[in-house]
């Protein structure tokens, strides 16, 4: 039976026939093969990306048994990946726990500012850990002894790029630098290879954690390695109990969860993570996009094959006459489509080699194809599967032609052929239009989310970092800010003790609101100075900004009074019917070491969105002249954020006044964009792949229209003989296509609208579907088709009728 269907002689006949036929009809070749190659190349790159994203940290020792401890605040539903290192001795005793790793983020404990020779440097991403570090993380030590740095004080291990940066040489073992804050010399005892891309761990330098294990605050990333078969739930509960005891917290508002190490990379990011991770959503969207591209290319192929069926009909008739059975013909055409798919796969591999660097730019990874033979089997299998899937319907369709009809020439012009041709055109057009609309809507929605109002201003803002708090919030001396305002280009400035683009540091606990029994709104504490609303670009809806005109705004320690600005979202809970009612009211609150402060409301602002625009807004209580953390920053509104001179003037002033070296200044906008890079990436990725998808469908439209026009060459010749002008012939063909496209809109518009609407309703904030997108999509498709058909009609109509009318 198999021999009957596919003897090797027959197969080679099919393949030879397929190749030669492809070469003769070059346009068909180009359109189908290129279309399929693009789809396959995209699928291949996305597969590489997905595999890479899913494999983060899988090379760490005992990765499947390792979990990260996550702090979960039940009331606000906030999560935090850090906790106190005090938990270490207790956690190791929990049954089922084999080992515990504390990675203490030195950012909270050390300025990182050092002197080497005559130069100042700042070390960032310094981690303090114990000797069991290498039991959890695979570290490649290049020089020296890592254990020394992990056990002895004043020793440090550097990554190789850090060693290069600081000392100009990779082997920096034995070299020393001076830590400014402790005035001690630190010696490099080891250099380790930079961490590879595919891990969520990130550290530039490592020190010993011995001195920091008693800290109460949440400064340590904590990981536990469980014994096989351990009860995760129970361990998590015990962890919660441990920390409730350590913090003496009986409020039962805290819960600890264990997050598998292997899930961390694709899980939602935390602002304090050392490295920006990936996103499960991006991965899923890219998978969806690549499947879409493959589907479109396959659909194009199916369409073109069916349309061209008429051309092959003669061959089909002849082969049937010569003894081919229907099944043999199906196998023949399937062989052809598999050959085309394999050719496309080859081309796709070439495309991937070419485009991988650009793709890496897009997704921010370093994907590489080490060895093609690894993927050979999968690639071939996929190509064959696609070839069969796309070729099946056309093969069955073509091989069912009745000999009689075919050989009598009825086929190309018969009624069926015309109906098929028109339906395919409508279908292709509907698909193209829907696709353009969907791609545009997806892009605009994502973009919209990106640019949602955060209710503070990122543009034209500079930020000076890491300034000691006592210098920023002087009791009775605004001379620094006055001097700052005299700099050319500075419009306003204010100190700020938290990073609006990241998170609030501390909480404000309101204890009494006049007229309200139980005010339980949790709020973040924002210590700012005069002109905070102006400098931060907050949206004031009632009252006024903190101002030097009202000296009493500033925090008065003796009297315990201070001016506050509240967010709009707490108005209702405080019993105010509108914002104006809040002005002048006095609330009592605790913050840090200060108890029962009296805060007089002078203004109400729109709630700010801390962190990503897509986060839920978190109410912040702005307090004038009071701060809790030991360091803060200055936010400065300037008229030209790119001016080097303004920056230099500011830096000079700060260095002079505050006797600081190495003043760091950044653009708020840039800082924000870098943090939410991966969101941007997603939008870019969608844009590019949707663009590709749209391009592919237009290619399909082009192929179909071209083919249809050519099929009517005989009709055109006849009309020409009967007196039609070239122009009227062109109008004839193009008007038919336009009518078909119009008909396709009847399908495409409602279907697109419905599905896109359903999707948009998943979002809290969504765009409205605009008629413009729909019209543009229809216009683009119509334009492509019109141009194609007009060009071909013109060309065909210029051919001598005698040539077309000759009986073939």
């Amino acid at each position, binding site marked *: 039976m198999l021999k009957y269907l596919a003897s090797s*002689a*027959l197969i080679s006949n099919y393949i030879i*026939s397929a190749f030669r036929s492809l070469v003769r009809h070059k346009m068909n070749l180009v359109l189908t093969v290129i279309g399929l190659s693009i789809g396959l190349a995209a699928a291949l790159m996305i597969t590489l990306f997905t595999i890479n994203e899913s494999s983060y940290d899988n090379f760490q020792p005992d990765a499947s048994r390792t979990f990260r401890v996550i702090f979960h605040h039940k009331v606000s539903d906030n999560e935090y990946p850090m906790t106190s290192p005090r938990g270490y001795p207790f956690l190791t005793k929990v049954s089922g726990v084999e080992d515990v790793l504390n990675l203490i983020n030195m950012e909270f404990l050390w300025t990182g500012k050092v002197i080497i020779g005559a130069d100042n440097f700042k070390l960032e991403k310094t981690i303090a850990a114990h000797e069991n570090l290498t039991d959890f993380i695979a570290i490649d030590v290049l020089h020296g002894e890592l254990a020394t740095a992990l056990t002895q004080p004043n020793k440090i291990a550097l990554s190789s790029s850090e060693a290069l940066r600081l000392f100009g040489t990779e082997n920096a073992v034995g070299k020393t630098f001076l830590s400014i804050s402790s005035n001690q010399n630190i010696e490099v005892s080891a250099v380790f290879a930079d961490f590879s891309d595919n891990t969520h761990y990130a550290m530039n330098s490592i020190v010993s954690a011995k001195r920091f294990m008693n800290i109460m605050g949440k400064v340590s990333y904590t990981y536990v390695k469980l014994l096989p078969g351990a009860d995760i739930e129970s361990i998590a509960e015990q962890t919660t109990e441990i920390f409730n005891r350590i913090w003496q917290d009986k409020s039962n508002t805290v819960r600890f969860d264990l997050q598998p190490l292997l899930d961390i990379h694709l899980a939602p990011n935390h602002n304090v993570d050392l490295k920006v991770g990936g996103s499960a959503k991006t991965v899923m969207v890219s998978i969806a996009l690549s499947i879409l591209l493959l589907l479109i290319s396959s659909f194009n192929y199916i369409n073109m094959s069916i349309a061209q069926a008429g051309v092959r009909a003669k061959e089909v008739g002849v082969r049937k006459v*010569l*003894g081919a059975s229907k099944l043999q013909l199906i196998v023949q055409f399937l062989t052809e489509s598999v050959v085309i798919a394999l050719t496309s796969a080859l081309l796709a591999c070439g495309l991937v080699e070419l485009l991988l660097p650009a793709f890496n730019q897009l997704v921010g990874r370093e994907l590489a194809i080490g060895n093609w033979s690894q993927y050979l089997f999968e690639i071939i299998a996929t190509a064959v599967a696609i070839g069969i899937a796309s070729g099946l319907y056309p093969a069955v369709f073509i091989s069912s032609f009745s000999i*009689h009809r075919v*050989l009598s020439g009825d086929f190309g012009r018969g009624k069926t052929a015309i109906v098929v041709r028109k339906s395919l055109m409508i279908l292709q057009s509907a698909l193209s239009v829907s696709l353009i609309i969907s791609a545009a809507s997806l892009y605009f929605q994502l973009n919209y989310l990106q640019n949602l109002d955060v209710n503070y201003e990122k543009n034209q803002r500079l930020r000076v970092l890491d300034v000691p708090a006592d210098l920023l919030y002087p009791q009775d001396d605004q001379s620094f800010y006055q001097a700052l305002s005299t700099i050319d280009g500075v419009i306003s400035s204010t100190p700020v003790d938290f990073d609006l683009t990241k998170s609030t540091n501390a909480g404000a606990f309101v204890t009494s609101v006049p007229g309200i029994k139980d005010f339980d709104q949790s709020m973040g504490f924002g210590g700012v100075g005069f002109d905070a609303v102006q400098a931060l670009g907050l949206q004031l809806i009632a009252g006024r900004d903190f101002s030097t005109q009202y000296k009493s705004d500033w925090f008065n320690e003796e009297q315990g009074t201070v001016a506050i600005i509240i967010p709009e979202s707490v108005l209702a809970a405080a019993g105010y019917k509108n914002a104006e009612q809040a002005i002048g009211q006095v609330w009592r609150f605790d913050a840090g070491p200060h108890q029962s402060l009296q805060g007089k409301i002078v203004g109400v602002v729109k709630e700010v969105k801390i962190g990503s625009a897509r986060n839920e807004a978190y109410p912040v209580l702005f307090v004038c002249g009071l701060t809790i953390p030991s360091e803060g920053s200055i936010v400065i509104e300037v008229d030209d954020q790119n001016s080097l001179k303004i920056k230099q003037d500011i830096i000079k002033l700060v260095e002079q006044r505050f006797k600081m070296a190495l003043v760091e200044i950044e653009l708020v906008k840039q800082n924000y964009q870098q943090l939410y890079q991966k969101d941007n990436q997603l939008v870019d990725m969608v844009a590019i792949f949707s663009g590709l998808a749209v391009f592919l469908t237009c290619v399909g439209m082009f192929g179909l229209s071209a083919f249809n026009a050519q099929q009517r060459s005989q009709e055109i010749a006849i009309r020409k003989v009967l007196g039609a002008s070239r122009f009227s012939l062109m109008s004839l063909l193009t008007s038919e296509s336009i009518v078909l496209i119009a008909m396709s809109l009847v399908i495409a518009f409602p279907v697109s609208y419905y599905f896109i609407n359903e999707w948009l309703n998943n979002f809290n904030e969504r765009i409205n579907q605009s008629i413009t997108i729909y019209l543009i999509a229809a216009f683009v498709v119509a334009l492509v088709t019109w141009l194609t058909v007009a060009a071909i009609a013109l060309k065909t109509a210029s051919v001598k009728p005698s040539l077309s009318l000759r*009986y073939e």
Partner: protein
Amino acid sequence: MIKLTNASRLFRTQDIETTALNNINLTVAKGDFLAIMGPSGCGKSTLLSMVGMLDSPNSGDYFFDEVNIAKYGERKLSKLRSSSIGFVFQSFNLIDSLTVFENVELPLLYLKISKDERKKRVSEILKKVAIEHRSAHLPQQLSGGQQQRVAVARALVIKPKIILADEPTGNLDSKNGEEVMAMLRSLNTDGTTVIMVTHSEHDAKYASRVIRLFDGQIIVDQASDVVREVQHA
């Protein structure tokens, strides 16, 4: 060898019914050279299709080698046809993407003939029709006469019992036409039955018997003029 009894063929398209063949009775003996003639639309091609097992009668019987194949399905007809009947068409109907050799070899592929046997038969037949020097060429590279010769070779390579030719010289000039007709006649002399549809009275002279169709019925069935001349002579 071939016997049609009261065979009819109707075509229905939507509301129009055309009777292409109306109660045809026809007997063809082995070794006959039959010419089918008649004005356009009289049913010649339909009759040829039916005889050639490309189509079946709606009513009546078709006996091929004593077996009634009127009700045979597509599969069975195909098997019988591919081993018994060679076709020569007016428009040659060669496959454009195959060489001359591959075109002639094609029916043998479907008959599962071994590679060596195929090679032998194809070379023989190409020599016979004097086209071997072009065996690696594609049809587009040949003249009309050469293409028809290839088509004849393809029809012959299966060693058919009957050759059916539909206006074989319709697309050829007189010289090439003569060659093709001469070929057909020599085949017939060697024992192959030939049934030919033609418009040309000239070509009909090669045949030993002529039938004339009109509106789906045979109105004349007699030995050809030449034969009658000989008979009367």
